[in-house]
């Protein structure tokens, strides 16, 4: 159980990677942008991959009537997400310490993982809602209005995950280093659960 607790400790600490690295990365390449424009989505706000990428993306998006990319203080998520992550790290560390001294058993580790998974899914759901709004809530006076074959106006929602062609842009959306830290950390808590479970069984 001591070993499991240490793994649990490391796993929850891994979430702190989200404060150092972006959670998600969206790149927009086009023939006239051989060096793609890109945005890194951190849990604390959105940043351009290069210095002026956000300004240039906004500049291009105004033709199709998209809103400008929100600043950190324009979205409640960027206030709440860091608190949630800090909360989960503290909770995970607490559980691991209690586990280390035998105060709680390994099932708490799984409990943490389930809670984190629910929060994660909710986060992704929220992120997707934002992408949908960003890509489809367009200015009715937009300069360029493209109509789909079925007569509906084209939307410019970037993919949640993977690749999509949006007009002349090749858009790819992928988890970034912060997400991998989170993923590895969460997997470690599952490992901690199994290790704890095994040590219990072997007793």
């Amino acid at each position, binding site marked *: 159980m001591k070993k499991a607790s240490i793994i649990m400790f490391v796993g929850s600490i891994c979430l702190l990677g989200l404060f150092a690295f972006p959670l998600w990365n969206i790149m927009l390449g086009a023939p006239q942008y051989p*060096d793609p424009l890109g945005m890194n989505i951190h849990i604390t706000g959105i940043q351009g991959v290069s*210095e*002026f990428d956000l*300004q*240039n993306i906004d*500049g291009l998006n105004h*033709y199709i009537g998209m809103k400008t990319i929100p600043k950190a203080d324009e979205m409640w998520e960027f206030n709440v997400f860091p608190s949630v992550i800090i909360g989960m790290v503290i909770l995970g560390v607490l559980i691991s310490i209690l586990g280390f001294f035998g105060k709680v058993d390994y099932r708490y580790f799984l409990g943490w993982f389930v809670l984190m998974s629910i929060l994660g899914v909710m986060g992704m759901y929220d992120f997707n809602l934002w992408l949908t709004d960003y890509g489809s809530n367009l200015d009715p006076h937009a*300069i*360029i209005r493209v109509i789909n074959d079925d007569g509906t106006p084209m939307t410019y929602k970037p993919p949640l995950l993977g690749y999509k062609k949006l007009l002349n842009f090749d858009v790819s959306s992928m988890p970034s280093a912060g997400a991998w830290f989170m993923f590895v950390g969460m997997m470690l808590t599952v490992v901690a659960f199994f290790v704890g479970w095994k040590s219990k069984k072997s007793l």
Partner: protein
Amino acid sequence: MKKYFFYLAAALGPILLLSGCGDQNGKASSNGALASNNAEKVYVAPGEHDEFYAFMSGGYSGNVTVYGLPSGRMFKEIPVFSQFPTNGYGYSEETKPMLETSFGFIPADDSHHPDISQTNGELDGRWLFINGNNTPRIARIDLKTFETAEIIEVPNSAGNHSSSYITENSEYVVAGTRFSVPIPQRDMPIKDYKGNFKGALSFISVEPETGRMDIKFQLIMPGFNYDLSHPGRGKSHGWFFFTTYNTEEANSLLEVNASQNDKDFIAAVNWKKIEEYVNNGGGTMVPANYTHNVYSDETHSATSTMKKEVLTVDPTKVPGAIFFMPTPKSPHGVDVSPSGDYIIGNGKLSADLTVFSFDKMIAAIEGKKFDGEAYGLPILKFEDVLGGTVKSGGLGPLHTEFDGKGNAYTTFFISSEVVKWKLDTWEVIDRKPTFYSVGHCMIPGGNSRKPFGKYLVSLNKITKDRYLPTGPELEHSAQLYDISGDKMELIYDFPTHGEPHYAAAIPASILAPKSQKIYKLAENENPYATKNVADARVVRNGNEVHVYMAMIRSHFTPDNIEGIKVGDKVYFHITNHEQDFDVPHGFMMIGQQNSGLLIMPGQTKTSVWEPKQEGVWPFYCTDFCSALHQEMQGYVRVSPASSNLDLSWSLGE
């Protein structure tokens, strides 16, 4: 000659082609017309980049053009001593001061010899220097922005030809006078030239961090013509060598009268010694009148300052600093081998090259083996300093470059050829014709301690029959030789703009990564910049109207302006708000009597418009910027001079 070659090639072509089929491993024919691999050597596929940047001087066009090697594609024209309507250089209020001189605004010159800054004798790619020959000036081009950053005028000088070569740590850029003149200038009979006219060799210091230039001292030399120059390097670092002609000091019909002496001189100048003399308070400060024009990347503006004095040095006051080496037949080019061992003097009326040995020169100086003096300056004995003679078999040698592999390449103007010869043994290894009448040749880094000896470019003076005729006026022709093998191979020719005299080239890998892509708007300190769109406005000051305008894809702010009157002087101060590489915007206003503007991202430029007629007049963006480029436009309403209409401006109302 050309025709015979063609017939021969036509006759032999099929035979060579047939024999070529059976010999897949055989080396490609050296016959230019048939060597298909030559096309591959110069072919840079779409999307691929050239290996070298080449900077060609424009000669009478006063500019510098940038080419890629080996493709021969032209990338850019850099206006230097020239106006350039494309981007408003020399027309916009911010750049007009760059072309100020003590003679007033001079938007033309004759730009000759570009040289890239060096550190330890190797190209460092920070700056490119070039001389204005006619109204003596030296310009510094910033190789981050590829724009002219500074121009300094050279007083007491005329025909700034033995210029603008730089020492191996870019300590000095030199500006030697071709024409000797009265110093100071005065009204005197021309026939009294001899003994009264003087030649100024100016040493311009280069500030190591900023590149900022300043005339440190001028050597006031005897009244010869100082034709070309080169700094020593390696062991001869600290010396500068100048060729002279007209040591006869003739003042009329020089083609005869300045060709009487069998030998003119190469002046060897120990500039370190003179620097020391000057640093210890030597020299005489004399009144002078010359401009120093500096462009700032922060304010996007130039300032012109008039300087009032210059430090002159009488060379006879610094014993042991200057020596004359007799050189046969009116030498033109003087070139120093990469190691600094040899100084090659090319007598333009000679068939042979004269190579001086630096070691022998020092030994002769130490042994005081002089052969008389000229105006108090010692002349060394020819035989004592001669390192070797290249029996070339050509006619009219002009300039020599080096490949860094122990070989030298000399151009021959009269016999139209490039001759490759070996340093130390002086034997001719190879020779190839040029088409036609070659002036300078250039190997990337070929005048530094570390040449990149893969290509040689010959800069030819006569072009006829190389390209489709374009009326009486033709662009000049450059020819590209592959010099990577034992034998030179002519692999390409391409037209160049103006009359390129010298050129300088540098590996793209040194320059491309440092190339600036935009100007940061946040760092724009132009006093007329409109950094926030909300600050866009129109201000009247008497009959001057200042329009503070911002531009971004695809509109101007403001785009409607009213309250302008006939007789006003309207200054458009326009700031480009883009921060994206390669998205400039242009500005032209109907009836604008100077040029338009082309404004780079983050930059502010100013143009003046003086409305002559009432009406509503449009302006528009001239650089295709987006799908809605055509919509990027606006109007100015011009009312009668007596109108009381207040100024107003708007966007989207």
